[in-house]
């Protein structure tokens, strides 16, 4: 197992080199540089531009800039934001809890709904339930996410008034930043109604963000279960005279979960890298929104550093998926 993890980790190095090269060059290919964007419509004189460029190190040849950037990264320094002058890592750490909170709630929603829906659809194949699940999940998968968000907002926030429109908590509460997770902080603050407000603010964004993963998980679970249910060992299990639920949960699901875990892992990785549309629509201060804004500001260090961190998260999640895979599937655990 350790050998397996080490081998996987060694593959990460070229990935990192690729990511730094790609973000470094791509962001510089976008017309306009940070200085021009900061100056805005007033414009900036050529002399001042040159001065600022020299200050920020943009007058150096590209390969030298890249080299300086990478050597910084290797020392754990992702640089400072050109706009706020804050270290990229600190900005990221401030915003990341909001993204984690939303991503986890969305993932929990997606798994809690998607997995059982997929299992029941497979067991009751061809019934009305099966067709409804498949139709809903296809709709959910193909729906534009911002439209879905606005639709839910219109129904539940505007018309019915059940949920708040946006933000993480009602403005009447002032919650001290302890962990960065609003749910925990609101709970710790002990203010009456704060926790409830934080929960209410999470409901719609979680549903919106969890819709696509839910659809993917439901469809994957269904097809995987269908395949497993026709296996010979399911017949053996039933021939033992064990209860049908035991056949489905113990014998079928464990085998069916193997591909589903991969899908869940990949989806969680995507969720953690920030939900650009959902965060924007719900004014959720997470890293998706942060990255988008930094691109429009041509904030080179933030874009480079942010994407590098996001990539790291996805790589780590993938590694965790591979390890879980080995735990669930003995055939992988035992092969060297």
């Amino acid at each position: 197992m350790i050998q397996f993890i080490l081998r996987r980790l060694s593959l990460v190095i070229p990935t990192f080199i690729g990511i730094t090269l790609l973000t470094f060059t791509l962001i510089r290919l976008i017309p306009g540089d940070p200085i021009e964007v900061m100056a805005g419509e007033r414009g900036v004189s050529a002399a001042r531009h040159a001065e600022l460029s020299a200050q920020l190190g943009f007058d150096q040849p590209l390969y030298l800039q890249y080299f300086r950037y990478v050597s910084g990264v290797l020392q754990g320094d992702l640089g400072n934001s050109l706009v706020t002058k804050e270290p990229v890592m600190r900005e990221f750490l401030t915003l990341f809890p909001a993204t984690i909170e939303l991503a986890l709630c969305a993932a929990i929603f997606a798994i809690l709904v998607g997995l059982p829906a997929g299992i029941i659809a497979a067991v009751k194949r061809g019934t009305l339930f099966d067709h409804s699940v498949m139709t809903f999940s296809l709709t959910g998968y193909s729906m534009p996410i911002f439209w879905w968000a606005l639709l839910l907002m219109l129904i539940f926030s505007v018309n019915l008034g059940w949920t708040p429109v946006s933000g993480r908590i009602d403005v009447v509460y002032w919650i001290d930043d302890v962990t960065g997770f609003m749910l925990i902080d609101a709970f710790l603050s002990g203010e009456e109604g704060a926790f409830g407000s934080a929960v209410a603010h999470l409901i719609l964004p979680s549903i919106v963000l969890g819709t696509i993963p839910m659809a993917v998980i439901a469809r994957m679970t269904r097809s995987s279960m269908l395949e497993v249910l026709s296996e010979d060992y399911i017949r053996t299990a039933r021939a033992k005279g064990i209860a049908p639920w035991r056949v489905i949960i113990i014998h079928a699901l464990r085998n069916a979960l193997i591909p589903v875990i991969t899908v869940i892992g990949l989806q969680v990785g995507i969720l953690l890298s920030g939900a650009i549309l959902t965060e924007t629509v719900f004014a959720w201060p997470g890293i998706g929104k942060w990255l988008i804004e930094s691109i429009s500001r041509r904030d080179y260090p933030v874009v480079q550093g942010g994407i590098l961190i996001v990539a790291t998260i996805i790589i780590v999640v993938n590694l965790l998926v591979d390890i879980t895979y080995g735990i669930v599937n003995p055939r992988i655990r035992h092969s060297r």
Partner: protein
Amino acid sequence: MSLLTLDKLSVTFGNFRAVDQISYSVEAGEVLGIVGESGSGKSVSSLSVMGLIDHPGKVKAAQLTFMGQDLLAMGEKQRRKITGSDIAMIFQDPMTSLNPCYTVGYQIIEALKTHQGGNKKQLQQRAIELLTLVGIPAPETRMSAYPHQLSGGMSQRVMIAIAIACNPKLLIADEPTTALDVTIQAQIIDLLINLQQQKQMGLVLITHDLALVAEVAHRVIVMYAGQIVESGPAAEVFSTPKHPYTQALLASLPESAAGKSRLMALPGVVPGQFDRPSGCLLSPRCPYATERCHEEVPPAQGPLTRQVKCHTPLDMNGSPIK
């Protein structure tokens, strides 16, 4: 009282009759061979005895009783108490019949736990005994092995251990050796017959292997296109077959074609869902078919112990009685 009695049992999938009104019984301590080519309904009829026919399959019978209990009338829960404990089954492909995610020990203990119960230590002990009984070397260490670490023969031994875990009165073996190589086949059959004699079980042996049936079975049933075409004591059916299909089946054995360049074969294939003949199902392929065979479904005739479903059964010399 017979151990298992089937009377006019049919299994249908939509309009297709996979098993068409078959009747037979199995006595305690008896080995019943069921032979026939692929798609003749051998497996499906056994699965219906186990209660493993799924939607859209439908099982209908005038009678389906096990030790006097009506299997079709009882509730699902009650039936599961019989399935796996009093009636057990082993399957064709042992390599895919064990769940790859669980150890051998877990899968044996699961069967024990479902029907007998007991504490962890007793169950463990009993499972090791079972593995020893089916001839698996080093059973203690094998308990924690996963199916992918076992060979085909070993897997089939484990399957047998699971099947006999609760001391079944009836064991159905559905082509238990088809997926194994020849040397292992003989070992598995020896094991099955030994266990059958030791425990005085009824054994239903479904197979393509006519020589095997002739050797070990007391009685034999020959199936064709979902029907029983001939039944009787194994030795008699094979020495003097009365049905043209049985005769053709025996003639197709490589042993009976010694010295000839080609094996004997009936022209055509088993009728499917859409080309079922109106008269005798074998009539399009039968060398002795008459006008009557093409129009009229033949009844089963002869004493209960030696039945044949044919208008023109064969005589002692193998030619049709006019």
